[in-house]
């Protein structure tokens, strides 16, 4: 991967931070969010890795991750993060960007067994138009 000023400071990242109100640079990659995420087993790319991709300017990679759809929007990560990052808002912003592009929602199956009730609620929200 080749990075430079232009790949790091794109309009898309600015937009993302504007929608979410969260600064991706704040995250210091401790991983506590992923450790506490109720869907951590299903995520594929763990939540803290999603943020890392954004720090490295790899927004498209983050947008392609199933994780952003699986995110239950339960805000557990936000409650635990020592840096005050609300990762679920960033997840939401990523979904919003995709929806604004008119990209259909990822084809996810039913919420994985054992996931918190809130997952069902958020799945309903995410999958109803």
């Amino acid at each position, binding site marked *: *991967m*080749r990075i*430079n*000023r232009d790949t790091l400071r794109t309009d898309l990242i600015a937009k993302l931070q504007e929608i979410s109100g969260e600064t991706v640079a*704040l995250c210091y990659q401790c991983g506590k969010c992923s450790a506490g995420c109720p869907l951590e087993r299903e995520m594929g790319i763990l939540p803290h890795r999603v943020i890392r991709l954004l720090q*490295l300017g790899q927004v498209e990679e983050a947008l392609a991750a199933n994780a952003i759809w699986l995110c239950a929007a339960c805000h557990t990560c936000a409650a635990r993060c020592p840096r005050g990052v609300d990762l679920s808002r960033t997840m939401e912003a990523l979904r919003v960007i995709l929806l604004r592009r008119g990209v259909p929602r990822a084809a996810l199956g039913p919420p994985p067994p054992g996931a918190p009730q809130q997952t069902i609620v958020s799945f309903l929200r995410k999958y109803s138009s």
Partner: protein
Amino acid sequence: MPRIGVFVCWCGLNIAGTVDVERVAEAARAIPGVVHAETYKYFCSEPGQNLIKQAIQEKRLSGVVVAACSPSMHESTFREAARMAGLNPYLVQIANIREQCSWVHTDREEATVKASAIVAAMVAKVRRDEPLEPLKFPVHRKALVIGGGIAGMQAATDIAEAGCPVILVEQGPNLGGRMAQLSETFPTLDCASCILTPRTAEVARHPLIEVLAYSEVREVTGYVGDFTVKIARKPAYVDWDKCIGCMLCQEKCPRKIPSDFERGLGSRKAIGVNFPQAVPNRPVIDREHCTYFEKGKCGVCAKICPVGAVDFEQTETVREEKVGAIVVATGFDVLPREAFGEYGYGKYPDVIDSLAFERLNSSSGPTDGVIRRPSDGKIPREVVFIQCVGSRDPDKGKPYCSKICCMYTAKHAMLYRHKVPDGQAYIFYMDVRAGGKGYEEFVQRAVEADGALYLRGRVARVYPEDGRLLVKGVDTLSGQAVEIAADLVVLATAAVPREEARGLAQILKVGTDEHGFFSEAHPKLRPVETMTRGIFLAGSVQAPRDISESVAQASGAAAKVLALFSRDELAADPLVAAVDESRCSGCLACQPICPYHAIEPKALKDRQVASVNAGLCQGCGACAAACRSGAMKLKGFTDEQILAEVGTLCL
């Protein structure tokens, strides 16, 4: 008949967990001459010491054996307790049944037998102990500080402020050390010269500090309270007393040479000062690069000098001084550029080290503080910083962490962004070590406010590509290889001891660690002392240190010096060698063996004998072992005592 008391310590479970202490006491009671034996949980505690004092008085003990931890831990504690109870402190012996027994064994039965044997050996020794009196020496209340960096200046100022005169020897032409090269300093970002210049001026002005710049310590003899030092003043080829510091010579000198002070990024003249605010503000001629010394012609400086101060004939002068204590503050260096072939350091001009970056960023530096890359003077838009270069690299560099580079690299990323707002700083790191007051917050500021991108991983290669430098590294956090086309690459090279440090350590007869940093007497409890009494350490001569730590340690060293100077006389352990003159044949086999040069011949009426300078003798006993006529004895460790110990152990 001797009356010996044996005190077997449990040391909590440290000893009692492995050794049956009651059985050891019981065995001791059976030794002839032992009139008292007891055990206690912690004899080093106040009540424990009281038990010993009580037994000394009640049982009229003539000798004491404390079976406990290593003598280096508590020998002095127990000797002091004995003294307070009226027993000569040198009639106390320690049987080390912790480090040399309980800690290294697991079998309780065997450990108990061994502990009893160690106790018996020390009983045999203490029976042959003689009461000794501490030696007394006068104190010269004047200190020598070697090294005029921030640490040396702090120590000198503290000592002088307490009213004791100080000689401050600096090998370079000016005070300040590395700090004089720095631009702004973490964690407050105040400019280095703003905090340094008033300090150097204060030191130079202080009526009790004599600054000897461009000087070196050549020889040190004597001992604590009474050192004699030879200090050589190197020829500057300028008479500094006549010189008025106008620097016309520097202006007119036709020879331009690369400046070490500017890390090769700028030039200096063959005569002149390192930087305009240098203290003392006096020039030196770089003999190796001066046209006059090369060809015998030129002498422009001598012609222009309004006071005739230039003196090509100047030679080294040596003076002798007596001092009571020495503070070593000779600082550190960074790894030389040759060490990092894979980063192209020394090959590509735009690969520089962090000290060079300090100069680029300094308003008195070669670019007046504008950050320009060395190759073409362009403002770099992408700058890669590489941390841990040569540090934490046991295979090819140094195994230790250099401690200061995480912090100064964060500082560099900040300062760079302040000067080049549209630039991007990348920092390759392994861990960010920011343990200090306000340090972690400082690093986070570099990320949050100044957008530094930290990439966790080492860089493998740097090579030129289309007029830039391609940096190949990795981001282990995302598991991806990373390539950056950089305009400038800055290496945070390992902090290392100065090359001359070992030589100075030899002159001072103090130890260095495996890397060459000066060794402290104890890493935790005696961090500013050396193993040689009266010689103290300050600053980065001991290990990589930042400014605040260097200053704190310097004040600590000064406090130690002042504690020494607060006494009229110094007391020293009387466990030194002494000659039985009636048996000495005068062969002086002992003299070359003594590592402390404590032995001199002494003339008697009809013959010569050896004599020991008790102030210099460190009680190592090498001479006693070498003496063929058995005349040399180490007090407290006589042949009879050692044979009695060994005899007891082997029976």
